[in-house]
């Protein structure tokens, strides 16, 4: 279980997050939602030590080890054009290697495994610069998977993808989570997709948790309008709530 315990982040004396207390059970998929600037990315970054924070982030009650316990996928990953997919995924083994060590055959086998799980075998030698958006996102996911960390934090994993590729990536992620028993936390702007895939949603607004619960309870017109503004309608679908924008002249 990963937990944020009283985590607070300030930039230049201005508090941008917290204090926040969130617990995510092993194997759970938590969706973080909230308007721009709500603190979603900051919350994820605090877990891997990318921002200074008060409070603590722990894993099963002990201090977390970034890299080994938690894999993080940034909103806009830096993908060197010429680097091959296989080599890129192999860099995910870094937490397991000393500063001066080279990869062992076990590391290479783990890389191959991650590549196979994300259906990238045919692209293993392709330079990253030649991949489509969906393929690139799968490569980043494969690198995170090669870390063999029990917790995956993904910052808007589908932001640059069309709806077809977004669903493809989230399906792969859901499948992996079930098979590997991973704990997943995603920050997302697409509320409908977030509701479809997450077990639980946490709505952040101005750095605070303002709603926490199953998607059907959080994705209500009253709650969303209070934090995103008026132009939102929530429709009921058999698979869960569908959040649609409404033009202000219609609303």
């Amino acid at each position, binding site marked *: 279980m990963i937990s944020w315990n009283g985590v607070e982040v300030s930039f230049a004396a201005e508090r941008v997050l917290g204090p926040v207390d969130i617990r995510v059970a092993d194997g759970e998929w938590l969706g973080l939602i909230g308007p721009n600037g709500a603190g979603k990315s900051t919350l994820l*970054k605090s877990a*891997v*030590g*990318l921002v200074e924070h008060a409070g603590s982030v722990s894993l099963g009650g002990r201090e977390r*080890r*970034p*890299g*080994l316990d*938690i*894999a*993080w996928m*940034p909103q806009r*990953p*830096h*993908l*060197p*054009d*010429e*680097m*091959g997919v*296989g*080599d*890129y995924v*192999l*860099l*995910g083994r*870094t*937490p397991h*290697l000393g*500063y*001066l060590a*080279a*990869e062992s*055959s076990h590391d*290479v*086998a783990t*890389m*191959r495994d991650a*590549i196979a799980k994300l259906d990238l075998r045919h692209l*293993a*030698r392709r330079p990253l610069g030649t991949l489509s958006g969906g393929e690139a996102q799968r490569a980043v996911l494969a690198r995170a998977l090669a*870390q063999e960390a029990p917790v995956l934090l993904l910052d808007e994993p589908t932001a640059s993808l069309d709806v077809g590729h977004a669903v493809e990536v989230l399906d792969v992620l859901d499948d992996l989570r079930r098979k590997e028993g991973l704990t997943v936390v995603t920050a997302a702007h697409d509320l409908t997709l977030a509701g479809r895939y997450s077990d639980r949603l946490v709505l952040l607004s101005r750095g605070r948790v303002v709603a926490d619960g199953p998607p059907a309870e959080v994705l209500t017109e009253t709650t969303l309008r209070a934090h995103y503004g008026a132009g939102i309608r929530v429709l009921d679908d058999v698979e869960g709530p569908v959040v649609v924008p409404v033009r202000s002249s219609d609303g």
Partner: protein
Amino acid sequence: MSGPAARTEARSTRVGWGALSFGLAAVLGAALLGAVVGPAGLEPISVIAAILDLLPGVSIDSGLTDVETNILFEIRLPRVVLGAIVGATLAVAGAAYQGVFRNPLADPYLLGVAAGAGLGATAAFAVSGDTNWLAPFAFIGGLAAVVATYALGRSVGRRSATSLILAGVAVSAFATAVQTYLLQQNVETLREVYAWILGRLTTVGWGQVGQLVPYALVAMGVLFVGRRMLDVLSIGDDEAKALGMSVARVRGVVVLSATLATAAAVSVSGLIGFVGIIVPHTIRIIFGWSYRVIIPLSILFGAAFLMVADVAARTIISPAELPIGVVTAFFGAPFFLLVLRTMRGPT
């Protein structure tokens, strides 16, 4: 099973036997060329025989006269070996700066490190006149310059390739201005320092080679064993940190090592520019992106490149000699423009 299949998926991080043999052949070929070419022409076979004769248990008559043997071992070879070490250190320092700053234009010369080291060395030269202080003062000057360049480059806003280089230009100009002032104050050393600024491998004996070796070995050793870290850095600071790497510590160690290498080279041979751009980029184009390949091959091809450049410097206007810095700049400046043209914007 993982062996052969693994190589097909992740093989661009290994130095192939072909590249390694090519690099070693280039070093040996360039060294032989450097030993043979000069006013007193020596036969390649005789040179090889004379060198083999030094090996324990080997006795070959090289056919060289005592004067020729003296020329070979006391004039030519120290110069060839110095050229190899300076070339290797400058190339590997350039590659390391490019990796650590994620900037294809980074080079000891363009980052102001060479000018800073030059200022430090000039200060040591002018104040004490004692050459023992050259290397440590050059190191301090070089380090101060690279820190100033990095800080200035970042303060301009987003760290882009060009802002870092522009900061390097400013730092170089400042260091050169102070250096010129120091020279004006110490006119008697002007001529000697001026020749040194243009870069030279002349007036070299084994003593100067010995001065450079420990610094070069330490710096190259550190950069060689840590070369995988440069590949990790290439996917971004945040990603590297999230992979558990201490980015600040790695960057600090790499910058210190590259600066130590540059300062040691500069303190002995003066300012020789562009080696750190030409060599790593050519390797990158031919052998790929990985620093696990670029760093070791930069050592080999940097050595070969500068030995050949030195032959050119010695022969182009023979019997006079061109400063080697002029030769490397002649090839390096157009190459720099080529790299600039192929860049895809700030990295």
